[in-house]
């Protein structure tokens, strides 16, 4: 099962390597990983998407927590949460396909952020499913390059 973990870490050199080393050393897998500073610049926030049964995810959570530089580990996929990913797509856009590409981008509420005679760079943000959907649609038209940020996620505040 897919799990999205939110991890707060000390923002120090080598800390990310402790996290990734833990995953490779213990045979856990990382589907995506995204990390950046929080408001407190001594703390980084890391969103990690992994797959595994409950026992494996329990081990992953505990092992992460055991790392001395890790402050907090939350499996946010246990509750309601919002996840977003951004993708930049360099898509072929020649005279015969330009209009179609623009239509597709519009449907997905994407943006063209760079224009050249033969291609666009398109920016799209959304859930992993949405990103996959636009990639599938643009593929037949001709994707030249693609860069994804990996998922970032946040637990929803309780409604009560």
């Amino acid at each position, binding site marked *: 099962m897919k799990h999205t973990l939110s991890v707060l870490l*000390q923002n120090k*050199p*080598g800390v990310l*390597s*402790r996290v990734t*080393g*833990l995953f490779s*050393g213990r045979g856990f897998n990382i589907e995506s990983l995204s990390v950046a500073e929080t408001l407190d610049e001594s703390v980084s926030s890391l969103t990690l998407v992994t797959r595994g049964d409950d*026992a494996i995810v*329990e*081990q992953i959570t*505990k*092992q992460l*927590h*055991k790392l*001395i*530089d*890790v*402050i907090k580990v939350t499996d946010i996929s246990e509750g309601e949460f919002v996840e977003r990913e951004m993708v930049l797509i360099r898509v072929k856009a020649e005279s015969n396909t330009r209009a179609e590409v623009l239509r597709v981008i519009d449907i997905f509420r994407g943006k063209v952020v760079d224009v050249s005679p033969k291609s666009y760079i398109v920016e799209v943000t959304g859930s992993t499913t949405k990103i996959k959907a636009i990639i599938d649609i643009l593929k037949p038209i001709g994707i030249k390059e693609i860069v994804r940020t990996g998922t970032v996620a946040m637990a929803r505040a309780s409604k009560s």
Partner: protein
Amino acid sequence: MGKINGSQAIIKCLQEEGVNTIFGFPGGAVIDLYDELLDSGIKNVLVRHEQGAVHAADGYARVTGEVGVALLTSGPGATNGVTGIATAYLDSIPIVVLTGQVPTALIGNDAFQEVDIVGITRPCTKHNYLVKEAKDLVPTLREAFHVARTGRPGPVLVDLPKDVVATMIKFPEKTPIRMQTYQPTYEPHMGQVEKACKAILKAKRPVLYVGGGVILSNSNEELTQLAKRLNIPVTMTLMGLGGFPGTDPLSMGMLGMHGSYTANMAVSKSDVLIAVGARFDDRVTGRVDAFAPNAKIIHIDIDPTSISKNVKVDIPIVADCKHALTAMNSWLDQAKDLNEDEIKTKHEPWLANINEWTEKHPMGYTNEGETIKPQFVIETLSKLTAGDAIITTEVGQHQMWTAQFYKFNRPRRWVTSGGLGTMGYGMPAAIGAKMAFPNETVIDVAGDGSIQMCIQELATAKQYGCPIKIAILNNNYLGMVRQWQELFYDKRYSGTIMEVTPDFVKLAEAYGAVGLRATKTSEVEGVIKKALATDNTVIMDFTIAREEGVFPMVPAGKATTEMLLV
């Protein structure tokens, strides 16, 4: 207070931590530190290979319970120490390893004797540090000692660039260490303690399964109290030996791959298994789904990652073993309507059952005239030292025979590489132990293969007047691998025949030590007596039955009840 240089600050930190002996090997990156060491009053034990330094610090730590310290230079000095660090990591031994590093300006430049030791040791240390600024030096060292000795102990490495160590700094006052992200849980959850106690009281066939955590947390007395008040039989892992008296009638000896028939049968038939500071290692469990299949499992461990890692636990207690066992004993003290004698009586049929297993398949061997049986050597050692010497080992058959036949009655007398299984561990560890307790008898039981992995440390033993005794069980084989080849590879002895071994008696003499040899059963006792009476480092070379095996044996991946018996 005026300023002092980084080396002086490091020495002051070591003194603050109560360190009086360190094990090390100098080099360009730590020459300043070695210079300060000379007048510091801290004894530096110069080893002959850095692996030996770390093992010696580890042996020192195991027998004292204090943090052992090794000091290595950069590059190869540091990498040579890695096996020692990994050994300490797998057995949760508190050591601090200080490594020299090239000056900060050169880091990353492939400078002479530069290696990213922090990167290399990240997966085999509890934590490690590269000190990039002189102001961080003292706080980092204090934190390193704190991390090494608290929680589940382990090795911590501090990498010290040469320029940082040369910088003049103000020595900061010692303040209590508070780490936001590291707060081990010592106290058990009382609700869990109650659940555990109630499960134990209900049990008909309880077993205590005791690991190295009991030794590390010094909780052998609390454990013994719990076992005795309710008559619960006890089995120990390799690391747990000495955690409960080996000669006590409730002791079933070791369990697992080379454990006793009784211990393995008892665990598999138990209805409540109480794991204390043990981690359900594959050498203990055999095939996991057949391990204690009918038991409710209680697991006490300070490390939450140990719980339900290999075997699903029913009642976890995350706590220091000493605190948890104390809490359980006091819960029992206060339990209303508890008649402990009634519980003891209830366990009698179970204990009778256990005794039957022991009678059926006792831990034993057959003497064959004058051919020396290795088990006989260990029994004789145990007898002549009243089971109370500090025993270190290398890794292999000799290690298992020692675990089976030496009866440890006290903790911290048994020093062996359990988790990593490091050949070459025993002699340097014996030196470390002897440095800690010069008046104790310290014996390294070795094989002819293992002893050659760190044989150079004989010089260290001699240089520091360290009269350790080394008992080599010599079969001219890498015996444990040979045994597997005999049993599972059709006796195809690939790479296990030691066609050339040195004359260990002459080798001892070459180092200025004493060499003794026994080739017949009748010579064993005399040789051991002579070695124990000699105030010098002694090698005893016992020519043993060449193809003697270690039994019982649970083949890898089999259930622990599927033991091969002799």
